[in-house]
């Protein structure tokens, strides 16, 4: 797999504030990478560096094997971008702005544009100052989705969209993904990332704290287990790899290290299992683990 985005040891300060201290990750061809982290962690700063809007202090950042600052124009021909807070010229209509963006990007599919306007239920004749946050976001999305790019960068793209529109966005992203394009998706909405992303990169205070496929990440953490047995379940509590053990009669809930799962099952089977449920950690659990611990 060839690398579409390659970031190594990225650093950036704003005055005395250290926005990025060590950011490294890659996005491969045909991959959807979820980029998650709380507000102020450095997601947008990283994306702005990728777009050549601001320059890095040190480290390397390449898209399509080209330097994001020096060769930004070559790169920009083949990417699409939607910021998290789309701001628009109040005296232009949504339709005019979409056309402008398509033209400045170069190319763009008129039919696709019209189809997307319909799907997202945008009124293109309205002046942009009359748009709500969600409608402004739609303008940005339609403009980005109507052009044919090799890399799509979305910075919290669905903020302000209602759940129906969010679902439409996700469907559109899946279409792009199927056609083999790469996507860097920064988002707060973890269910969205969970649904779309092949790989997750978690950033905290300007540093990448975790990256890998969702499965890999899950493996590092614990599953939530519910078990009901015929005999007394209490002795499960003392096993290696069992945490947060709670018991009510013969029903117990606990979280289990995945690597000790085998021992746990062996022990449980001696007690006469009536019910056994294992829920893998959600992305939210993963996320929280990094920010609470």
């Amino acid at each position, binding site marked *: 797999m060839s690398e579409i985005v390659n970031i190594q040891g990225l650093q950036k300060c704003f005055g005395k504030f250290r926005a990025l201290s060590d950011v490294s990750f890659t996005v491969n061809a045909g991959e959807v990478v979820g980029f998650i982290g709380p507000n102020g962690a450095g997601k947008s700063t990283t994306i*702005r560096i990728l*777009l*050549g*809007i*601001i*320059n890095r202090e040190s480290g390397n950042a390449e898209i399509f094997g080209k330097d994001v600052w020096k060769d930004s*124009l070559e790169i*920009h*021909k083949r*990417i*699409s*971008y*939607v*910021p998290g*807070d*789309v*701001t*628009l*010229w*109040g*005296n*232009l*209509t949504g*339709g*005019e*702005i*979409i*056309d*402008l*963006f398509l*033209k*400045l*990007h*170069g190319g763009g599919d008129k039919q696709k544009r019209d189809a997307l306007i319909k799907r997202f239920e945008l009124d*293109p*004749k*309205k*002046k942009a*100052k*009359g748009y709500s946050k969600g409608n402004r976001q739609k303008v*940005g999305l339609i*403009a*980005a989705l109507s052009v044919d790019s090799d890399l799509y*960068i979305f910075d919290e793209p669905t903020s302000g969209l209602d759940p129906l529109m969010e679902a439409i966005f996700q469907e559109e992203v899946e279409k792009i993904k199927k056609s083999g394009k790469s996507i860097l998706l920064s988002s707060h909405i973890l269910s969205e990332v969970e649904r779309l992303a092949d790989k997750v990169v978690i950033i905290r205070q300007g540093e990448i704290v975790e990256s890998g496929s969702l499965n890999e990440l899950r493996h590092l953490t614990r599953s939530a287990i519910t078990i009901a047995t015929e005999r007394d379940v209490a002795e499960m509590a003392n096993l290696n790899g069992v945490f947060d053990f709670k018991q009510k009669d013969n029903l117990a809930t606990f979280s289990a290290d995945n690597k000790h799962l085998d021992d746990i099952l062996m022990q449980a089977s001696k007690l006469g299992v009536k019910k056994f449920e294992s829920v893998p950690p959600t992305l939210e659990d993963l996320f929280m683990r990094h920010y609470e611990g």
Partner: protein
Amino acid sequence: MKEKFARWDTLFLLYLKRDWKKITIWILGIGLFSAAYVPAFEEIAKGKGLLGMYETLQNPAMIAMVGPTPVETARDYTLGAMYAHEMLLFCGVVAMVITVLHVISHTRKEEDLGLTELVRSFQIGRQANSLAAMMETVFINVLLALFIGGVMMSFGADSISVEGSFLFGASIGMAGIIGAVIALVMAQVMPVSSAATGSTLGIIGLLYIIRAGTDVSNVNLSMINPLGWTYLTYPFTENNWTLLIFAFIFSLIMVVIAFALEGSRDMGAGYLPEREGRGNAKKSLLSVRGLFIKINKGVMIGWSIAFVLMGAAYGSIYGDMQTFLESNEVMKQMFSSSGVSIEESFTSTIMMVMLGLVSILPIAIVNKLFAQENRSLLSQIYATKVTRIQLFWTSIGLAIFASLVGILLAAGSLGGTAISAMGDSSTMDTLDFLAAGYNFLPSVLFFTGLAALALGWAPKLGKVVYVYLGYSFVINYFGGILELPEWFSKTAIQSWIPRMPMENFDALIFITITVISIALMVIGYLGYSRRDMIEGA
């Protein structure tokens, strides 16, 4: 009543608390600017100073700029008379403009930003905000009036009487209030705050220009001009307080109109309807140039109209000049001995004033690029194949284009009207006017260059260019009146340029300033091409 204005007093106190720093700077700034030059004027008045000044200010160009005096002979022209004559109109207009910006930013702007929506969700009357903002503004202007009166009186100069001092202050305060009420009405009529600000400043500009015409032709006509109710109070000479009563009644009526208009419109709406837009963009919009033209169209058209009106208003004065000369022996001698006609002298002065205003437009266009950057409007455009070269030089190009057109309109309209007003006695042709106008092109380019420099290296300082323009304008405006030292007046860029048609064209200076200006733009570009874009900071 309660429904409308409930708890306006709470808001009023909140605003005072919120704005106290601004209010302090405002009152000290305008107050000292208006009142503290008494010692400087005492210097001017020494010896034959008053006499000379009286004659200088009889020149129609000067009357068009600073207004008339009721004094009929040079002997009665006291220090107080001179001070009020030269300072009152200008200070009144400054107070007015500041007040307009304040009122709109606290009413319509807050509405646009969505603050009003939040405030109205509390137990606060629908119009309490407007009332509170208005009361705050009146309060500030009353303080300003008292402050000016107090400061002037404290110099204890001859002929600067206590009554005159407070009338002088009150006239400036009243000018502020008149500005405030016009702004409040426009804030209701216009669909957005920028349009309200623009139209109010436009109205003030128009009133100023109309009074320039009527002051020269027939001062009584200036009495029906709201602006006339401020500077025609003639402090220290006639002390005509009645005009302030007119102004007060006018303000009251305007406030009632504004509140009625506000009461019957929806929040966020105006009275000028908004049209439905296009679903698809016109071809002309689809480029960086097209976009920038579209974005700047409003301000370019607005200023273009202002330039034409300004030129026409000043131009119409030319017809009265010869008549005026006939009636004034001293002036007639002055002009015949210098070998320069009164029309030429007037042209060179007015051209400098007009070109100062023409310079605002290119600065605004260049600053607009950073304003857009800062509001993250360009985020999605940075991610396309559009280069920084394109963004920067398209803005500069548009600014230069606007300068060229602005000069053409201002000088052409002045010349056209002047020539038709003078009829057969015309001593100048259109080309003379255009040459006098384009002679100042380097100064306009210089301001554009400064704005470009700021855009590239310290974009937040873009507004400082206006401050320098204002400074240069004041130096030039008062340069003819006050005897400024050479080095001091040369700190204004226009002072380097000879005043055509009174003086001869200087190609060396023209080229030098042009080259410096272009160099500033190039240096600005070097900064722009490598700095971080500043979004939402």
